[in-house]
């Protein structure tokens, strides 16, 4: 991200929710990420836009320290993911691409498990779970097994789960894939509202262009490289296209 570099220097590190600088990653000979840099500030809703296989999931795995980044640096609220992983991981909530709830356990049991992984006391967890579950209007489903919930409901539970420990950075990897239009809209609006109200920084990975609204920030990634980033309008203007869809096609096509 060209402009990202300068803004790192201009901002105090503590104001940056997520700062990725020059991160590359290989799987054997395959270059999954190539010098990726990007910057997210608190309250930013940033869309990571790319086709399947562009490197989005690899980037998420590095941010969440499922793998170590071997080059460049990743910082979350000023904490390096490698050297200060405990502090860094505490700030993030993650919704993975694949469903990760235990189907045979109830919604509350799933959320309790997550709370314990963050060392939250039972009493505290109860309050936080009630609060998050009320926010997604699933209070009456708490005792039900996850297996009996619809795909959209499960996703909402996963988002609630990612927020229980009150993270300041929310990472979502293709959260709306496989859902119907209604559920997609519900989840998208929910996260966008959270972002505005709670000053939550959000990185939303998708290949669905219609999830991007005016004025939002977009990072376009293809074959492990960041092709462009910034406001939707800026990218559209720069690429001399009519809308972000055309801009994306143009950018990705050029590189193919």
């Amino acid at each position, binding site marked *: 991200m060209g402009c990202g570099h300068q803004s790192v220097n201009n901002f105090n590190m503590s104001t940056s929710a997520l700062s990725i600088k020059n991160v590359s990653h290989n*799987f*054997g000979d395959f270059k999954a990420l190539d010098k990726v840099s990007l910057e997210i500030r608190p309250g930013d809703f940033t869309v990571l836009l790319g086709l399947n296989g562009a490197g989005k*999931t*690899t980037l998420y*795995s590095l941010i*969440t*320290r*499922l*793998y*170590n980044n071997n080059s460049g640096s990743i910082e979350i609220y000023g904490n390096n993911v490698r050297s200060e*992983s*405990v*502090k860094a*991981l*505490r700030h*993030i909530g*993650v919704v*993975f*691409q*694949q*469903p*990760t*709830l*235990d189907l*045979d*356990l109830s919604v509350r*049991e799933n959320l*309790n*498990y*997550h*709370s*314990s*992984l*963050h*060392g*939250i*006391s*039972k009493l505290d967890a109860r309050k936080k779970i009630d609060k998050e579950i009320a926010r997604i209007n699933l209070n009456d489903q708490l005792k039900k097994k996850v297996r009996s919930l619809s795909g959209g409901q499960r996703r909402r539970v996963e988002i609630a789960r990612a927020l229980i420990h009150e993270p300041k950075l929310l990472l979502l990897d293709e959260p709306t894939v496989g859902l119907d239009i209604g559920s997609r809209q519900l989840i998208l609006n929910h996260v966008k509202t959270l972002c505005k109200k709670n000053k939550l920084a959000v990185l939303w990975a998708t290949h669905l262009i219609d999830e991007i609204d005016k004025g939002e920030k977009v990072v376009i990634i293809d074959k492990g490289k960041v092709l462009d980033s910034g406001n939707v309008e800026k990218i559209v203007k720069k690429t001399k296209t009519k809308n972000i869809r055309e801009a994306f096609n143009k950018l990705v096509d050029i590189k193919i």
Partner: protein
Amino acid sequence: MSFTIYLRCFNGIVLREALRFVHQKERFFSALVRPLVWLGIFAAGFRSVLGVSIIPPYETYIPYEVYIAPGLIAMIQLFNGMQSSLSMVYDREMGSMKTMLVSPIPRWFLLISKLLAGVFVSILQVYAFLVIASLWDIIPPISGYITILPALIISGLMLGSLGMFLSSAIKQLENFAGVMNFVIFPMFFASSALYPLWKIEETSEWLYYVCFYNPFTYAVESIRFSLYSQINIEYSIGIVIFTFIFLFLSILGYDPGRGNLQKKGGK
């Protein structure tokens, strides 16, 4: 990070495993049926073929059923260790392993907690087996029911950490059938579970050494002696050493830097 946070995390992981155990009744019954088939059918047919002489810890001639009981107990733990590693492979593919690994609590602690949770479940299965096995007159001294516990914990840890190491090394879920064939069966048959080692020595010396150095033999023998409230120091020390080796390898396997996690693309 304080002690209470670690404790809450540990409790949460054990509770989840216990809940899964309660919810998956089939798993519990199949874990019980397997050794009972060996006991009820295999042992009944085999007892006339194989005469077992008096060897420690036994003080009299014993029926074959009594001889293989410790081996079957170890088998319960072997399957449980492999099954919880199967669930780890499965979890990882389903992603719930990921949710655990992104917790801010250190990864080695998460893995050991998960391991202990699996051991806890295996011990429940073993006691259920012992209750039913008493119908076959497999009744150790009363004290044996208590003295077996430390042996179960340590052998459960060894077999669980072996499973965990394998789960970090297996590339895909489908390959688990291979683990059954290449790990579970050879370990079980090339051990002292079904026949005493001196019998094997009579037949083949190299096979004797394979059996002798098989970690599973250590589990079987530790359980056998502890069931009669005795302790065999050599086997006990061996089992601890094996546990450390497997545990070290599995923590290495799940290490974000050099682990096998990345070779699989993390999916």
